[in-house]
């Protein structure tokens, strides 16, 4: 198990050092500094073995977090724990910076004592931790016995991520469907690979211990219902459902229920958290199509024409569009003409960057450029890197739709109808490239 945990600043000075196991000595602190932080070369692995001691590290801005062990620990668990540690710290005092860590070192030690016992991660949900690890530290005494046992039962209980007795005047929840769409397309417009990786992020401000049920247009669920002959019309449902390749859930979701019935039910943590992640590869709506045309005019000139077409409802607007057209290394000058937005040749990046603030659906726009080249005797042909694109669209390119999010709280007197629900879809470009 984890033998010790150290936090360093960018210079390699120790800010936090907590040793859990006897086999980790003080020299381990220095070994990591010398061999990793002060190492000359770039770090080649997040796991380093120095003198039979293994160091796992992650970096947040210029802060290093390192977990140390001499045993055959579960490596995936150690990294998950380090990320979790970062989340917990952020939840308590904001950004992880040297200043914040120094200011909160007592709190951090207290947290480390609580969430890691003898190197075994314990409950690390901030919702629960905040009930008894407070920056004031005085909460120790005035608690009643009931309060105490409530805390302990929550920390150890099945719903460790949520405390009891949360009250909101207005019960409200926000669902964000955030997708990043990835594409690799051939110059002829053939899709070489495309996938969407999506996340459903939920912000819940709900009283009590609400039982939630989340429904989306998952093909498997819709098909099952279609067969059962319930509400949906058969033809319609087939079109609207999407095939999900794989998904993972926050620990609040009852996995065995998902496995057997494919229904997503849970008691949500309070505040913001990531309910699920998913991947799809089928029937992806590609928001933009890039049509490149490159012509070499002699040895010293290139003519480039790129057309982009938006492929979604005309009523929707895409934002932050940026097209990046690579230019050869021996470019000497570039003239660009574009119909919309601004385009610039950036010599340092070897690319023409074309930016458009907004673009509605079913439109097209075009850029043409003349690139002058310096004559070289380099025999090697220019490799023509792909044209890449960035954008943001207000829909989910995977076609995912939230069908419902039902809230049941039997003990308190509010019903599903009283909850104010907001759903937002944002599709962003991941790696969106077209070869030319």
């Amino acid at each position, binding site marked *: 198990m984890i033998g010790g945990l150290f936090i360093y600043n960018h210079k390699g000075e120790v800010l*936090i050092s907590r040793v859990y196991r006897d086999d980790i000595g003080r020299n381990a602190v220095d070994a990591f500094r010398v061999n990793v932080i002060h190492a000359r070369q770039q770090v080649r692995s997040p796991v380093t073995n120095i003198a039979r001691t293994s160091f796992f590290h992650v970096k947040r801005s210029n802060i290093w977090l390192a977990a140390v062990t*001499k045993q055959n620990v*579960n490596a995936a668990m150690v990294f998950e724990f380090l990320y979790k540690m970062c989340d917990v710290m952020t939840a308590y005092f904001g950004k992880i910076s040297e200043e914040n860590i120094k200011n909160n*070192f007592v709190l951090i030690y207290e947290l480390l004592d609580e969430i890691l*016992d003898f190197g075994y991660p314990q409950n690390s949900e901030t919702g629960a931790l905040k009930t008894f690890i407070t920056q004031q530290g005085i909460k120790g005494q005035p608690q009643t016995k009931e309060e105490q046992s409530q805390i302990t039962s929550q920390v150890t209980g099945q719903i460790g991520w949520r405390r009891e007795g949360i009250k909101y005047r207005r019960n409200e929840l926000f669902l964000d469907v955030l997708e990043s769409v990835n594409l690799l397309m051939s110059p002829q417009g053939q899709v070489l690979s495309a996938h969407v990786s999506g996340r459903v992020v939920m912000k819940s401000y709900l009283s009590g211990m609400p039982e939630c049920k989340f429904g989306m247009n998952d093909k498997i669920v819709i098909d099952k219902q279609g067969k059962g002959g319930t509400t949906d019309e058969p033809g319609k449902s087939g079109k609207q459902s999407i095939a999900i390749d794989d998904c993972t859930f926050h*620990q609040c979701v009852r*996995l065995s229920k998902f496995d057997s019935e494919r229904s997503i039910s849970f008691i949500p943590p309070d505040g913001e958290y990531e309910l699920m992640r998913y991947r799809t590869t089928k029937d992806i709506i590609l928001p933009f199509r890039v049509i490149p045309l490159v012509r070499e005019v002699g040895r010293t000139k290139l003519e480039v024409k790129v057309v982009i077409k938006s492929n979604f409802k005309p009523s929707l607007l895409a934002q932050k569009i940026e097209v990046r057209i690579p230019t050869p290394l021996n470019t000497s000058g570039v003239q660009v003409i574009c119909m919309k937005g601004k385009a610039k040749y950036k010599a340092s990046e070897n690319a023409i960057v074309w930016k458009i603030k907004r673009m509605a659906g079913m439109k097209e726009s075009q850029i043409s450029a003349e690139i002058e080249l310096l004559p070289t005797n380099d025999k090697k042909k220019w490799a023509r890197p792909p044209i890449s694109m960035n954008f943001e669209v207000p829909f989910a390119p995977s076609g995912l739709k939230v069908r419902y999010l039902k809230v049941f709280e039997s003990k308190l007197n509010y019903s599903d109808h009283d909850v104010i629900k907001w759903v937002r879809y944002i599709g962003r470009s991941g790696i969106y490239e077209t070869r030319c």
Partner: protein
Amino acid sequence: MTDSKYFTTTKKGEIFELKAELNSDKKEKKKEAVKKVIASMTVGKDVSALFPDVVNCMQTDNLELKKLVYLYLMNYAKSQPDMAIMAVNTFVKDCEDLNPLIRALAVRTMGCIRVDKITEYLCEPLRKCLKDEDPYVRKTAAVCVAKLHDINAQLVEDQGFLDTLKDLISDSNPMVVANAVAALSEIAESHPNSNLLDLNPQTINKLLTALNECTEWGQIFILDCLASYLPRDDRESQSICERVTPRLSHANSAVVLSAVKVLMKFMEMLPKDLDYYGTLLKKLAPPLVTLLSAEPELQYVALRNINLIVQKRPEILKHEMKVFFVKYNDPIYVKLEKLDIMIRLASQANIAQVLAELKEYATEVDVDFVRKAVRAIGRCAIKVEQSAERCVSTLLDLIQTKVNYVVQEAIVVIKDIFRKYPNKYESVIATLCENLDSLDEPEARAAMIWIVGEYAERIDNADELLESFLEGFHDESTQVQLQLLTAIVKLFLKKPTETQELVQQVLSLATQDSDNPDLRDRGYIYWRLLSTDPVAAKEVVLAEKPLISEETDLIEPTLLEELICHIGTLASVYHKPPSAFVEGSRGVQHKRLPPRAGSGESTESPDVGQSGPSEAPPAVIPSQGDLLGDLLNLDLAPPTATVPSVQPSMQMGAMDLLGGGLDSLVCSSPAMGAGLGAAPAAMPASLGSAPAVGGGLGDLFDLGGGVGMPTGSYVAPKTVWLLAMKAKGLEISGTFARRGGIIQMDLSLTNKAMSVMTDFAIQFNRNSFGLAPAGPLQVLTPLSPNQTIDVSLPLSTSGPVMKMEPLNNLQVAVKNNIDVFYFSCQYPLSLLFVEDGKMDRQVFLATWKDIPNDNEAQFQIKDIHLNSDVASNKLQGSNIFTIAKRTVEGQDMLYQSVKLTNGIWVLAEMRIQTGNPNYTWMCWRRPHVRECVSQNDSPVIS
């Protein structure tokens, strides 16, 4: 408030000031002072002098202050044990506190204080806390048992804490269960043989129930524990798998990987024709792919594991090639791992895509990555024959870039391509020769020289090229020197007229002006070969070389199996067994995959996947040629960790040099195989294919003569293994014995030389059953001339395993102050029969029926006059156990079982005809011998 100020106090007299503040009456001031102390402690200052003052602050109502004091105590108690006692009272009192948080805090902290006297006081509070009404206290106490065990294992056993801990597995609170499981697993690791965890279907059921309810971390503890369970049959295995699969959708990657581990392990037991088996395979792919969208560090862990999974079960991810394509912003460690997996998944179906990608990568910036990409192209050429042509032309394109390291890397892999497809792509040699001058790395130079030597007859100016290297001969690395020597000799044999001078020159450089023994020896061998018999020289040096196999970088199957049992852990990241990086007893247990259940399948290879490299595990085992290279220690190439696929060029050199003659060189002693030769008369060997063990059996029966050795296994008389004339005066004779479960090699070392011999050491080459010396060769006194010394060397069977031909061949190197000598001998297989080789009757019956005929061998043993009972007793002495006996038509039939050290079972039937002194061993059978399918047709009676 800004606590950061505590970090900046560097003035002198600080300790003194702190002391005053700690003893202040004001609570706030006290707390401030303790904070300062902790800050100093963090940055590494020694504040142990403040021990009494800090401990004085312990009695406080302020929880935050208390925690700080405890933190201080944990750090310094060990250095001030006497003073630490002062704290005991407070701890004991806190353990009785009304607030469960304080009770838990006290017991948690006490467990971290490694002072014997405190530990004594811990027992009673701990016992109470283990039965506390509050689950928070119980879960903390459970971990505390593990802490205490780490300090004083005996105490924990004496106090009966282990039983209480076991009871906690049935606790109503899932987190208590998870922590109890974690603690028990840890304790069990240091007691490899205890049945501490005592997993049975009932406890497993409890764990599976808790799995659904506990925290993500608890799920990991439970899954890791489940992975060590061995289900009774395939049905149980399936039902566990069914309950574990939902975990694959967990957001925590560690939960997913641990679940994958359980599934990969238990799948091993499911019959392949089961529908569920296919379903499970399909379910595994998506979560593995999803792991690649995690944070880079986790991606790295996942990729290292996927590398193992792909080797074990290529069918899972064979269609997922694209997800392993490298992204431009991946960290370098992720890029390198993805590249590795891409090569593993490369096949005829996707090779075009892979090659296009690799070509892209070869133009990136990171040197290591580019090199690996270039090597990968070469590996694709070797792996997918249809793509070789395309790969070679890609490599040529890359050479045209003239980027120095790309060119060198390309030449190294092209050499390998020549080894795989000889005489096919020589047209590229001209291009290669153009780049001769730019090569500055030894490996690339050596590769180029090898190519020139190998194709000397087709390169017009080969002599000039080689001569140009010769000028700086002494500045070259050994690798290049050896290669140059061999290449010039090859050239000479091909074009003797023009190159006589050159060969003279290189031979004298190698033999007279070099300090390197390998170079000198090789030089002499060539010289002598050339001068005595040029025709023979030609046969040796220009002999046809064995083709290199396609996937030489696969992890050795037994190691792979072990690593599969460690999915998700550090071992799977390092690709090393835990014993390689964990100190002490922990993790030294070797884990194994469970044997497959189900009928008719038992002897099949575990990988019946339609295709894929795993179908041919023997391919991984290096050929014997390499092995001789190893043994002779000719392999001087630098560690080739970066290029596992490429055989070090020197090794080829070794084969060039010694060609086929090596076998006789190493085994030149006529006494070779003498361990068995002792009883040739007893061996008519009706089945010629089984001389080795048959001989051993003959030996066993030879005892029938009735010399007084009623029990214990047979020991053959010593035979000469190493002749004095071959070993500068050292004669070694020896035999093998099994005494009280320990394998021993009895050696007689005789000094027939004129000088004293000292500094003896012994080493074995890798062999079929992993025999290795369990200790050093104990020759304490110098061996004076004409003296003989008898040594008994205990052997273990935990050494590296490699299949030998014959199976029981053992190659040994003995060193003394004079030189290193090599010989090989054969051990009787009976050496490996273990004491617990008695199979249950029912199991025997079931297994017997399942064995296919192919695995059967029979032969006769003549001239032995024993009745069945005596034979049975005798054999029992050698750990051959009689399971059943029956009499059919006047023949006694004995059914026997034997278990080998590597867990292989051999079943036998022995027919004894009364009145006729013929004993017919009917068949030896091997059930579920998964590891050794490759040995099926070996001469051993297996």
